[in-house]
């Protein structure tokens, strides 16, 4: 068996009665950009902190190149980390902040000077070496923190919501920087965020966390097009969930019946649900179309919102549930509030969850 670069094996962490991380297992190949995505309190940080060594796991193991790192204290793990909050050493200049990890490693003055210079170039802050942290913007501080964390060539870089304190525009700017730095250095990155757009933009793969467990690991496309659970379907991308009165499962497909009697065949089934029964159908707002031939799900238009490039239309089903559609404004010209119409979509673009 070839050993995986980084493996998290049945990791568990409890605080009293609270299970913060519950049986989390992950295999991370070298050089991957893996993001932990999940709502607040889902155990993302706790998993990251176990890697950093701040939190001793209650059970499980973490192996780097096949060897467990759990008995190694934090300062000897040689792991890089960028925190959510600004953590530059306030009494040291930018140069000295980046030099700090090299000084505690007793590197020579000339090596340190060269390395700091290279790092400042990497994060595009040449000429800022003499600045004090208090005189940097939030984005600049996080870039220096990134330079400091990469200065000692860590095998793994941990980032815990490093951009959450920045405004949207700056965040997007630095996301591009982070991607470039990942490509230039080839460092393995474990990144935490609860912003799905950020996760989709940055990651090779995404691990979706919920209640201390990983619901699904995969590329952004996989999560979006083939969500394994109802939670993932609702968390990644926009979604509608429609009540299902009955589903007849045949293999990987189901034939479903809505409460108003409308039926839909060939719906993909997920999460190993094999038994037939009730449940929910997830369909993305952009998969919906207004039908022209009167087939499909009968609905009534409630509201139309013009958003420039696109418009959204809010409908109500016969059994009173809301469902919304997003499309180019030209495609929904005939939708006016109060109008009755029919919605259709490719059955394979919707998903049934028991």
């Amino acid at each position, binding site marked *: 068996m070839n050993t995986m670069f980084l493996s998290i094996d049945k990791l568990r962490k409890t605080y009293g009665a609270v299970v913060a991380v519950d049986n989390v297992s992950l295999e991370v190949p070298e050089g991957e950009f893996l993001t932990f995505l999940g709502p607040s309190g889902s155990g993302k940080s706790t998993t990251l902190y176990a890697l*950093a060594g701040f939190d001793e796991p209650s059970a499980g193991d973490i192996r780097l190149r096949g060897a467990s790192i759990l008995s190694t204290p*934090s300062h000897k793990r040689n792991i*890089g*980390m960028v925190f959510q*909050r*600004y*953590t530059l*050493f306030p009494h040291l200049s930018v140069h000295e902040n980046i030099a*700090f*990890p090299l000084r505690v490693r007793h590197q020579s003055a000339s090596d340190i000077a060269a390395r700091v210079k290279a790092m400042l170039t990497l994060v595009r802050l040449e000429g800022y070496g003499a600045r004090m942290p208090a005189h940097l913007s939030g984005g600049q501080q996080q870039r220096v923190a990134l330079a400091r964390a990469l200065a000692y060539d860590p095998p793994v870089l941990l980032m815990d919501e490093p951009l959450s304190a920045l405004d949207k525009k700056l965040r997007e700017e630095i996301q591009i920087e982070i991607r470039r730095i990942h490509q230039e250095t080839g460092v393995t990155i474990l990144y935490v965020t609860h912003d799905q757009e950020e996760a989709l933009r940055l990651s090779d793969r995404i691990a979706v966390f919920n209640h201390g467990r990983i619901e699904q690991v995969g590329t952004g496309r996989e999560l979006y097009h083939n969500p394994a659970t109802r939670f993932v379907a609702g968390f990644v991308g926009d979604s509608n969930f429609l009540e299902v009165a009955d589903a007849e499962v045949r293999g990987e497909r189901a034939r479903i019946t809505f409460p108003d009697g409308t039926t839909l065949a060939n719906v993909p089934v997920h999460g190993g649900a094999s038994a037939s029964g009730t449940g929910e159908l997830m369909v993305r707002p952009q998969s919906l179309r207004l039908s022209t031939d009167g087939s499909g799900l009968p609905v009534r238009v409630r509201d139309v919102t013009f958003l420039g490039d696109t418009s959204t239309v809010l409908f109500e089903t016969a059994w009173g549930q809301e469902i919304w559609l997003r499309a180019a404004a030209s495609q929904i010209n005939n939708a006016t509030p109060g109008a009755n119409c029919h919605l259709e979509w490719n059955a394979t673009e919707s998903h049934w969850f028991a």
Partner: protein
Amino acid sequence: MLLSYRKLGGLRIALWAITLAVCLFLLVPIIFIAALSFGSSQWLIFPPPSWTTKWYHELFADPRWLQAAMTSAKVGLLSAALSVFLGLLASFALVRGSFPGRGILRALFLTPMVLPVIVFAVAIYALFLRIGLNGTLVGFVIAHTVLGFPFAVIAIVNSLEGFDKSIEDAAVLCGASPLQAKLKVTLPAIKLGLFSAAIFSFLISWDEVVVAIFMASPTLQTLPVRIWGALRQDLSPVIAAASTILVAFTLVVMALAALIRSRMNK
């Protein structure tokens, strides 16, 4: 606002008067003493008939006064150093620790501040009597450390609470041992708090008289004890001179502290 300064009208004058009165009440005795110390009258007549510095000459000629000042400085510096050191350890426990009874411990650390000084003085005198520490420098330093410690704890806890632990964590991940991280990152970051703690506990020791009277021996006296002793013998302008120097030194320390603090803040 309910009470707007500008809308107070005539009351404003009253406010000014009260403020002025309070300032005078606080300052006049000090100015009075300083003036008397430069007055020529043996019997502290005010206003002084003429001005002289002879009481200062007399003061500096008497080795007992000098000795007392030296003792005060020694006790002050040592107990300040000890207060800051112990206060630092206690603050880490109070801010970072999560053990049962933390709140009680915090309250306990602050009791010397609220306990009547005379009660503490009698208690520590009785204790030191048993272990033979009365009249020794060590005894003085321990007693004054107890008094300065709560102020050191308050100053250091405040600055440690304002310091983000993640910064220390970052230093540890950078490869610094937990102790190294504290010495190289946390302490420099809270230096203002440490400095305030030192100044506070020094000044508390510097002008403390009640406990010091109990700790003192004829050969080991702090300046306030010497002033108190001299007062009971006779009312000489030399005492006014000594008091003036005591106050002047306190003012110098405070001014220096303010200066250094503003430098550190830059």
